């Protein structure tokens, strides 16, 4: 982290003094960090710790009694097919949606990074627009856009003769998950595009100039300069995109509420319904069980993230070698 470097160090003035003197001279620093630390403590660290504690409880609602049941929730979770189905759906979501989003966003970013494209800022604005909009509201709008009852998408597809009759994109269990994925890719595409653009801008232009002098074509520039230079960023971008794709609660809940017949019940929707919407499926809310599912899922995500960080480090080394050569 850049902070550790501390370009403006106060060390010279105070390092010879004792610890308590240094703490006292820095009292304003601590006071200034207090609001931020309190907010982080209340809404990041306390909930983190408590959700582990809650995962060991049998607890069916905020007003009812909490009973400590140890690892029972986890034992039940491992044998719960609904949980594993939701878990699998979330990973299917990542495996399908992330590569599509990464590749399409990279292609568009390379196009928009071309300085000869005068309208690039305008296109960037258009592609980024869905990102800033409210996922829950967009989800509801999309249920109408995709409606089988003369919704615009079906009208356009039927009008062009691409499909014989309207498709119930969100109502048919066979198409619902794919449709939700497509909408999610469309909605968050712009984030990945901005990541790629930021990465592309770090590639020194002089490399391209030099390669062109050596007679390299566009494809060779891409193959031998752009791709290797982007590799370390790619690892981070994959990590950020995959992580975001595992957290798609708002748009899925707004579009399908996990239905039809659980077809779009990704892990976050499953956990939410276990904790807060159990009455809709005729059960009691299970806050402890939902916490256990959340913690289990969180650990899996962390392990994957750590693996990716490891890969990113390796990629950075490869890039460093290339730059040195």
């Amino acid at each position, binding site marked *: 982290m850049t902070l550790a470097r501390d370009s403006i160090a106060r060390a010279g003035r105070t390092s010879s003094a004792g610890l308590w003197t240094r703490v006292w001279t820095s009292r304003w620093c601590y006071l200034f960090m207090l609001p931020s630390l309190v907010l982080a403590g209340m809404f990041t660290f306390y*909930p983190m710790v408590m959700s582990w504690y809650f995962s060991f409880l049998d607890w069916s609602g905020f007003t009812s009694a909490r009973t400590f049941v140890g690892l029972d929730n986890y034992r039940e979770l491992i044998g719960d097919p609904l949980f594993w189905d939701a878990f699998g759906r979330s990973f299917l979501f990542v495996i399908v949606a992330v590569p599509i989003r990464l590749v399409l966003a990279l292609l568009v970013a390379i196009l928009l990074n071309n300085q000869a494209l005068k309208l690039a800022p305008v296109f960037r604005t258009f592609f980024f627009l869905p990102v800033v909009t409210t996922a829950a509201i967009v989800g509801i709008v999309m249920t109408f856009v995709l409606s089988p009852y003369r919704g615009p998408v079906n009208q356009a597809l039927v009008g062009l003769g691409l499909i014989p009759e309207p498709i119930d994109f969100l109502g048919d269990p066979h198409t619902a998950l794919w449709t939700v994925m497509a909408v999610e890719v469309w909605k968050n595409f712009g984030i990945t595009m901005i990541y790629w653009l930021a990465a592309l801008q770090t590639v020194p232009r002089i490399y391209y100039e030099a390669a062109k002098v050596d007679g390299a074509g566009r494809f060779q520039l891409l193959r031998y300069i752009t791709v290797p230079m982007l590799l370390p960023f790619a690892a981070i971008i994959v990590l950020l995109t995959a992580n975001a794709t595992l957290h798609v609660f708002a748009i899925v809940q707004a579009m399908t509420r996990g239905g039809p017949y659980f077809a779009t019940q990704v892990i976050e929707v499953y956990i939410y319904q276990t904790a807060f919407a159990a009455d809709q499926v005729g059960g009691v809310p299970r806050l402890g069980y939902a916490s256990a599912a959340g913690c289990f899922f969180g650990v899996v995500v962390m392990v994957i993230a750590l693996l990716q960080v490891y890969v990113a480090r390796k990629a950075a080394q490869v890039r460093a070698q290339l730059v040195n050569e």
Partner: protein
Amino acid sequence: MVTVERSPTQPVTRRRPRRRFRITADHVPMTLISVVLLAVCFVWVYPFLWMVSSSIKTNAEVFSGLGLFPKAIRLDNYVRAWHDAHIGDYFFNTVFVTVTSIVISVLAVSMMGYVLGRYRFPGKRVVIGLLAAAVFLPEGYTIIPIFDLINKLGLQDSLWGLALAEAGGAHVVAILLFAGYFSQLPKELEEAAMMDGAGFVRIFWQVYLPLAKPVTATAIILQFMHSWNDFLLPLVLTLNKPELRTLSVGIYSFQGEYFTDWSGMAAAATIGLLPIIVVFLFLQRYFVEGIAGAVKQ
């Protein structure tokens, strides 16, 4: 818009079919790429255009075709959404929560970034370690403890609880943006201010914070996007409390109750989305910087 696709640039590609394999970004005229991208962009934002146009149509006209221009402009959809569906109340709830959470979080984050960027003090490594932990440790299902905490603080029946929860969290990206920016500002400013007798707080408030306007704008925008668009937190914190709903939760519930009134729904959705779209169009540099910040760190 559709006619744009048939542009005079098309024959240019036909002129050199033999060099097909060599046609690359260098050779294809930029105008052709621009025209194709323009068409793609139109389709890309079509759902929003359709939503806005539906909000001024009659219910019968909404599903009559793909056209975006209504026969007559109907503003009664907005009146219905604003009053009958309480979208007006939800709008003001959202504004309150968003503004309050921006004030709280940006103040806290800028102070934290200032100290981390400009000072060395015992325990600094611990604080940086905590920030890293906030990013990497598994979250669990934090909404349940947050709900529990808001109840324990007695804030469950007012919008203050929601505003505080929206402002809460570690805000690592924003803190790093501030710290990086403050660390590059010259030290002489501080020394000059100290000669004039300014204390720690005044040096921050009157000398350095005013210099950090671009980062402050980015931090405000990040928080604005977060608070205005959030769904799970307001959904859970306002369960059984319809009067506290924000726009996203209000419209989500509206979907269940007024399912057939699509033009009213489109008006409600437009009220929910238009403010953030307008802010984005005017201040998009800061949106982009906030998003790109995650990669650059």
